């Protein structure tokens, strides 16, 4: 199963949701943010090498972290050298070898954001709770639908107080899971860890489990 974590807008927490969702679904997280990768990586082949035809996608998966990860390089030269059309085969090879793949999509609406949606079976949208972030979410949802990566759930990230989930549910037509703003999520993310490894009974950890259950439910339905 291939799941794309998308969202149009940058800085809404796509990488955080991808990592935590990957942990819950026991998946490989592919960092497809080709120009601005932010999931921690050590030495070794990365997605830039895979897209340039220099490395095998399955061999580039690291299993030594808390979540299996296909990291992405951070150089402009690497981002320039790769052929984004290879992403589809790369992600499918990893899914064949590992079962479940969560793809962390880049921001924007260019080909690098569209390619993961083309290969995905379903998508999770990450949106900020501000009204202006909704327009990007709607555009990304339209593209995901067109590329047959139907919307499984929406993660409303870093909410405070009582977010308008009912209204959003009607606007976006998918289950909304609000993930409260919590410093433990950020601290865990900096170490490349899902929040469940540092605070498994915290509210955010519980909400990520809920998000994973929504994804499972929508895919089995």
């Amino acid at each position, binding site marked *: 199963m291939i799941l794309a974590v998308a969202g149009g807008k940058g800085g809404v927490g796509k990488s955080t949701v991808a990592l935590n969702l990957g942990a819950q679904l026991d998946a490989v997280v592919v960092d497809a943010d*080709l*120009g601005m990768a932010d999931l921690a990586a050590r030495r070794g082949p990365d997605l830039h090498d895979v897209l340039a035809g220099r490395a095998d996608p399955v061999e580039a998966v690291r299993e030594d972290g808390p979540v299996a990860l296909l990291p992405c390089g951070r150089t*402009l*030269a690497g*981002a*320039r050298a*790769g052929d*984004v*059309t*290879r*992403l*589809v085969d790369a992600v499918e090879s990893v899914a064949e070898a590992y079962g479940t793949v969560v793809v962390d999509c*880049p921001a*924007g*609406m*260019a*080909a*690098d*954001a*569209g*390619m993961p949606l*083309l290969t995905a079976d379903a998508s999770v949208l990450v949106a900020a709770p501000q009204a202006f972030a909704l327009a990007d979410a709607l555009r990304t949802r*339209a*593209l995901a639908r*067109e*590329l*047959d990566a139907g919307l499984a759930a929406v993660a409303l990230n870093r909410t405070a107080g009582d977010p308008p989930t009912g209204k959003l549910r009607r606007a976006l037509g998918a289950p909304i899971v609000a993930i409260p703003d919590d410093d433990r999520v950020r601290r865990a993310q900096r170490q490349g860890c899902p929040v469940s490894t540092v605070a498994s009974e915290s509210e955010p950890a519980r909400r990520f489990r809920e998000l994973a259950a929504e994804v499972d439910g929508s895919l089995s339905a």
Partner: protein
Amino acid sequence: MVDLDWRVESRADVSLVTLVVDNPTATPRRVRVANRLDGPVRPPRSEGVPESGWDDGGFEGVVPAGGTRPLGYASPAPPDEPPVELVWTERAGSTVSADSERERAVSEESPEGVVRALGDARPPADAVPTASPDVDPDSADTDSRRSP
């Protein structure tokens, strides 16, 4: 029947082939136009990927009923006459109506279709710092002297 009008001209050792496929019949027809020049086909591109319908050997696509389809490509081969041939034509299915195509941002669900529709996201070549071997030897020397 389907009619093919061609013109070929040579500029800087590249042959430029201009084509018009004319379909005077009352049904849309799918056609295949093959390159006959002694060289590879350089098809028109969007965002770095060949336009829909083009492959190594030529073009395949639908010409609407009573309509024409202009085409063109280049080849690094000497001009020859005729530069192309109409290999086959057949009645095109009517499953793809103009209506269903209208609202779509990505008209073709393939990796190349996504790149064509959404645009190449790679950083521009000018933004990528190039390795400058002329500058480095000095600093490399200093480094090697410094290291034990």
